[in-house]
């Protein structure tokens, strides 16, 4: 087997597992499990970036893979674990609205994403072009997860997962974004994450819980 074919096949496998993890996140109740899944998603992203970097011979993509490893596989999951530990929310689970329906909606979204990706992948010249549809699907599924969840921490995980999808879309369509933009996004992510961490404590102080349905009371009549 030709090495480039092997790499392409591996990339497809990784992309498929990314999608699988996204579906898994959609159906998990426990916050802790979600963080683990998020870390796994980051790991898959790291591996795929590494593969693309190797096949395209781009040094910048190695850096960006290293950044992914540091930030999304190690730092953020660790901080999230500590955070829910301190918030005493590690055993939180939420009642989800009808998991099968959510799954079906997710399935529809995946089909929509693939349809949407077709004209883009025809224009792209990268070896990863077939995975653009999956990247879009990951974004949509993360968004769907944010919509169906009630807890503040899971909202943030959904947000981070969406960023993963964007990152994957960037690497698969154009071999990654320029380094400056990527660094900027990484920094934004960290800062945003810290701000949200502060919000968690504030929300809990106000409502004695991290359940966002309490915030409905803030609406002005």
């Amino acid at each position, binding site marked *: 087997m030709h090495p480039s074919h092997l790499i392409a096949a591996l990339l497809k496998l990784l992309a498929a597992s990314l999608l699988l993890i996204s579906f898994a996140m959609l159906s998990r109740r426990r916050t802790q499990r979600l963080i683990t899944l998020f870390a796994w998603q980051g790991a898959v992203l790291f591996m795929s970036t590494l593969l693309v970097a190797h096949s395209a011979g781009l040094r910048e993509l190695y850096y960006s893979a290293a950044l992914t490893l540091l930030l999304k596989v190690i730092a953020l999951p660790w901080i999230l674990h500590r955070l829910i530990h301190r918030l005493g929310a590690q055993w939180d689970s939420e009642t989800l609205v009808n998991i099968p329906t959510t799954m079906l909606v997710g399935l529809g979204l995946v089909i929509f994403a693939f349809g949407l990706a077709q004209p883009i992948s025809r224009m792209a010249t990268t070896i990863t072009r077939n995975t653009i549809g999956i990247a879009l699907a990951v974004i949509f599924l993360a968004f769907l997860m944010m*919509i169906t969840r009630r807890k503040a921490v899971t909202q943030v995980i959904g947000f981070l997962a969406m960023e993963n999808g964007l990152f994957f879309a960037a690497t698969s369509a154009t071999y990654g974004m320029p380094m400056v933009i990527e660094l900027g996004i990484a920094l934004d992510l960290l800062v945003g994450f810290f701000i949200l961490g502060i919000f968690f404590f504030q929300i809990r102080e106000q409502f004695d819980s991290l359940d966002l349905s309490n915030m409905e009371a803030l609406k002005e009549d």
Partner: protein
Amino acid sequence: MSLAGETSRYMVAFAKHDLSFLLMLICGWVILGIVGLVRPHRMGWIARILFPVGALIALGIAVLGAIALLSGHAPQIFLLPLGLPNLPFHARLDTLSGFFLLLLGMAGAGISTFAAGYFRSGEGTAPGLLCLQYHVFLASMALVILADDAYFFMVAWETMALSSYFLVTAQHRIPEIRRAGFLYLLMAHIGALCILLCFGVLQGGRWLFTFDAMRGASLTSFWASAAFLLALIGFGAKAGLVPLHVWLPEAHPAAPSPVSALMSGLMLKTAVYGMLRITFDLLHIRYWWWGVLVLGVGLFSALFGAIFAAVQTDMKRLLAYSSIENIGLIFTGIGLAILFEACHLPLFAALALAAALIHSLNHSLFKSLLFLATGSVLHATNQRSLGKLGGLIRRMPWVAALALIGTLAIAGLPPLNGFVSEWLLLQSFLFTPQIPHAFLNMLIPLGAAVLALTAALAAYVMVKFYGVIFLGQHREPSLVHAHDADWLERIGLAWLALGCVAIGVLPQLALRAAGAVTETLLGQAVNLTSPFWLIAPITSRQASYSGLILLAGIIGVVGITFVGVRILAHGRMRRTVPWDCGYPWQTSRMQDTAEGFGQPIRHIFDPFFDMERELPFPTDVAPHYRIHIEDRMWKTLYLPIARGVQRLADWIGLLQGGRLSTYLLYSFLTLIVLLGFVL
């Protein structure tokens, strides 16, 4: 002869730099305002120095306006070193702006002199700040008149609205005044929005916003009509045409009296100016139905204002409604002018337009005079309600005498100026049979009947105004301490009264000024060749009027009677108490009141009002009769609009459910839909 030649040559040389002098004077107003801010609480300095200097500047502007009007020069153009890059401010001085500057300067000089004596330090805005707002208001009105591009016009227009808003809310600690100010600002903004849209239509797709470019734009009949209607709504809201008049009876009483005078006398005229500028200068064509529309709205406003003025019990509200009536008369004239012009009868159009212009000038004089007189009364008595005044002619002889001239003028009695413009307006109605439309030339003479009714009602209103305030007995014991106006106030009032008499006695002066304007706008002026003491707008055989002869006649008759009575009845006169009708226990509360005087009108025009009456029980020991009159427009027009807006807002408010996931769903669905378009 040589002196006259010398003078005219001097005038020509001066007129070349007219516009730059004018702009410098306007700058002077703004500088005065800023100087006032340096020591904002030094009342003496601001009142005795800054306001009189402002009055002198106003006088200078009046002179320059008159020179521009009568020198017969081509319009002057000036590019101001202000504005945005690539979008400088253009100023232009032609006869129309000259006429309105003359009006602004003449009335402004009197009002500023009066204001010098009027403003006292007290609660509300500091005098220095008031001085700034006042002079910025004056300057922005002058700039509105001089502006020659839409951008400059709108900047000046909005400055005018804002500065007057702050002046209206000078007593901002009183909630009703804040409410009145808000209503005024709201209507001013709706109007400004319409004017902005009107300019957007007028540029005709070339995206050039100078008035010169707009004159050259050729619009289709649909777009020309759209521009005209937008201008009518926009300027109508500022002028107070019914049904956009609701702010006027609220804002005018709320403002300090000199400000009411400025707003009613001058600011409403800038709306008239804008209407004339757009209709007769910027639009290249006029349709007859525009004229009918303006005529109808004007007549209705005039009648409406007069009827409502008759039932008011607050003296400043009464004058505010009377302003609506007068603005209605002015727009009636404009409507007739449009109609005649569209029917290719330029001479009659010139007559109607001259009537409208002269009435604008007259109204700025006598309405300012009356508003200022109410200010003096207010200061002397602290009363605005007509029910608590009375008999002031003995305590305030100066104010009473000067206000009498104003009331006679506004009531349209010869030989004062109100008669001149109303006579000209009625004259122009007489030519409507020449209009080549079968129904119009039969219907429009009915308008003349409405006009006559309005004039009679206005006279009725003024009898009530003057009689209840100045004649009879004091209705409150505290009125004994009322004092007359101080000398600066008297000078201001006397200046305006002098203007009323001058135009009334020598109407040829005003007609010549208006003739210069109609010459530029319509290419035709009424007959100006008659001698200075006579006006005969079409031909002297048809109709002519001479204020001077009438005045001489009046003086002669009164003099002969006076002397005759002195000779015949001399020595047989005795002074005694008046007959008490056989009922010796009369008190001053038994006089005819403002309510009582207005009762017949209230009865006859009942359908116009929205009345609530509280009648006392026959057994009541201390009976009180209360009546509350409201404008029907509130319930029939404004409340439904307000409710609709509220319902729409509630409906949109449903989007705000408070649930985070719903908000996320909105953005998600938006994303999906937008991506669906890409697909």
